[in-house]
């Protein structure tokens, strides 16, 4: 606002300083927004898992689609775990899979939410200690869920997380 107010008058030095301050502030805000999205995005709380996954898919560097039953709201810990799984899985696909497409699928089966992320990349992913996959498995186990990785060399990678929920 100071920039808009003084931008057209006053001395050039002031204008440059204000311009710099404004662009620094905007950069910081943009980075903060991107960071917050990775932890717990507002869209998840406000609109639920469907829109939040759609938002992840829109930003995925590897073309991503969202399918299955993503309507309605689920208990917050279930939504958060499912979101985290997909967020990490997409990051892994972008980093390691060399894939041309990735499909996110969500289903509700017998009191469990089943989240699948499958790509058509190089496969060969293993859930070793300290890896991103291990972290994902731990996150799902914490909520008494199950986590599986199918990743034959050359056969793409499919992650399946089953999260118990009264849904």
């Amino acid at each position, binding site marked *: *606002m100071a*920039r*808009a*107010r003084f931008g057209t008058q006053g001395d050039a030095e002031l204008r440059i300083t204000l311009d710099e301050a*404004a662009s620094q*502030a*905007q950069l910081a*805000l*943009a980075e903060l*927004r991107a960071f*917050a999205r990775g932890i717990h995005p*507002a*869209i998840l*709380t*406000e*609109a639920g898992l469907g*829109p939040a996954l*759609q*938002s992840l898919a*829109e*930003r*995925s*560097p*590897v*073309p*991503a*689609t969202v399918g299955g039953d993503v309507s309605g709201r689920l208990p917050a810990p279930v939504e958060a775990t499912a979101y985290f799984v997909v967020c990490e899985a997409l990051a892994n696909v972008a980093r390691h899979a060399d894939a*041309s*497409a990735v499909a996110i699928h969500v289903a509700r089966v017998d009191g469990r939410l089943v989240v699948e992320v499958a790509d058509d990349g190089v496969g060969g992913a293993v859930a070793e200690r300290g890896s991103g996959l291990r972290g994902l498995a731990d996150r799902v186990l914490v909520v008494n869920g199950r986590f599986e990785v199918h990743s034959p060399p050359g056969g793409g990678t499919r992650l399946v997380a089953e999260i118990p929920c009264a849904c």
Partner: protein
Amino acid sequence: MRVLIADDSVLLREGLARLLAEGGFEVAGQAGDAAELLRLVRADPPDAVIVDVRMPPTHTVEGLVAAEQIRTEYPGVGVLVLSQYIETHHAMRLLGSSPQGIGYLLKDRVADLGELTDALRRVGRGGSALDPEVVATLVGRRRARDPIEELTERERDVLTLMAEGRSNQAIGQRLFLSPKTVETHVRAIFMKLDLEEAPDDNRRVLAVLAFLRR
């Protein structure tokens, strides 16, 4: 143009009011929450309102709900929604089936008074204004079979500005193109994306966004 401002930050409200007044707008009132905004609108409907998404009491989507209510009760009142962060989901929810007199901008845009007043005027006149970040996400989205890759760079620029809600005239001014050239690009885009040409700007925004979202 008569404008109401709703934001729970007094500082932002006052600052905005002052800048808009200097920019030739008549600031008819200010509200600190959605209830107060609705009361002011009902008492004396303005040409447009600026409303923050997060307001008391829960600081979640009060502004979005108020925006939808104003659109239903007073379709003639333009609504420009400002948000701390931008989501396609919220944008599409706001635009709904008739993107008339509606805008959705990142709050950071208030730093650029020209952009803000341009969007406010468009919305106040029954047009639409969609934040460049929403459009950039949608246009830049990676697709398995992507017809957007068949567009030339120039056509992609035109598509982006169309999706932001700009008229042919405004697109021409931005890109230094004649109205005729803009029309040619628009036709080419609709053909390449296999879309039916829309009769007016508002329906054009819808057609383009629906395509970008699928």
